[in-house]
């Protein structure tokens, strides 16, 4: 990541260089990762059709989806949102927020899980 981001964009943009090729490559990767997510869903939910493959995917289904999501998230952030080439300050603003967000998600899940397992279930209907 470069600290010398131009105010109105990146230097190569100012010189009229196109990033179309990179954007297309990232677009194709994103499409493939989404297709993999749906395939993993179909395979793990239809053991009759996918046989042994279903048994292989089912135990790692949730971690697999999380890894694929993180990969897509990172690709969009780095290339489409230009964090790869922009100022480090912007990356840290985003990473700092993501860390707090992750703490909020995990904290709430652990806390409510603890309460639920100790006889104090949340209000359910």
């Amino acid at each position, binding site marked *: 990541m470069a*600290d*010398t*981001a131009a*105010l*109105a*964009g990146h230097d190569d*943009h*100012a010189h*009229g260089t*196109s*990033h*179309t090729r990179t*954007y*297309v490559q*990232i*677009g194709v990767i*994103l*499409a493939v990762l*989404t297709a993999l*997510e*749906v395939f*993993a*869903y*179909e395979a793990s939910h239809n053991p009759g059709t996918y046989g042994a493959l279903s048994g292989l995917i089912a135990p790692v*289904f*949730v971690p697999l*989806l*999380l890894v*694929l*999501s993180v990969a*897509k*998230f990172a690709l*969009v*952030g780095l*290339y*489409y*949102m230009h964090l790869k080439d*922009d*100022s480090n*300050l*912007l990356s840290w*603003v*985003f990473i*700092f*927020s*993501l860390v*707090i*967000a*992750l703490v*909020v*998600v995990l904290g*709430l*899940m652990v806390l*409510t899980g603890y309460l639920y397992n100790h006889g104090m*279930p*949340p209000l*359910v*209907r």
Partner: protein
Amino acid sequence: MSAVAIHEVEHDEPVTGIHHRKLAIWTFIGSECLFFASLISVYLVYKGKSLTGPFPKDIFEIPLVTAGTAILLFSSFFVVLALDALRRNDQTKAKIWLGLTVLCGIFFAGMQVYEFQHFVHKGLTMQGNLFGASFYTLTGFHGTHVALGTLWLGTIFIQMLRGEMSPKNAINLETAALYWHFVDVVWIVIFPVVYLMN
């Protein structure tokens, strides 16, 4: 006001080397991370706790949502191409890519309206069970963000058609594009967490 401050106000060139609007939109995106983290947490906390139906497996239609996901990913691709073209002052391509982005936004919002109507007909309401309440809150807020983003990009598209956009004010499209990418990134999380891990 100091000389530096006056300089910043007049020329939009802060000492950080980052455009004010760009830093502002990233800070806003940071706050939005926390907003959606809270909503996703609530969905996950209440997941599987509903005592009455309908349940996720009864109503979700994966092919439709997959199409919506693909459309949103394509829109991110289109808007980054529009920005790239505008920076090169290729007005024709910028208009085409931005027009396609707006169309994708309209399609996704339409898909979500159709989906919500379909779910209500199947008995899933905000008041019915915890799944309904947390699902509609999470995806509804995301849909609202999509609608606002479409409106934002739509106004820039109109400016572009009027010939008011150039490489000099490409920052206007860049900030809107960053917001749009964030909306896409949130869906990248929501799609597997809500629809696939049921």
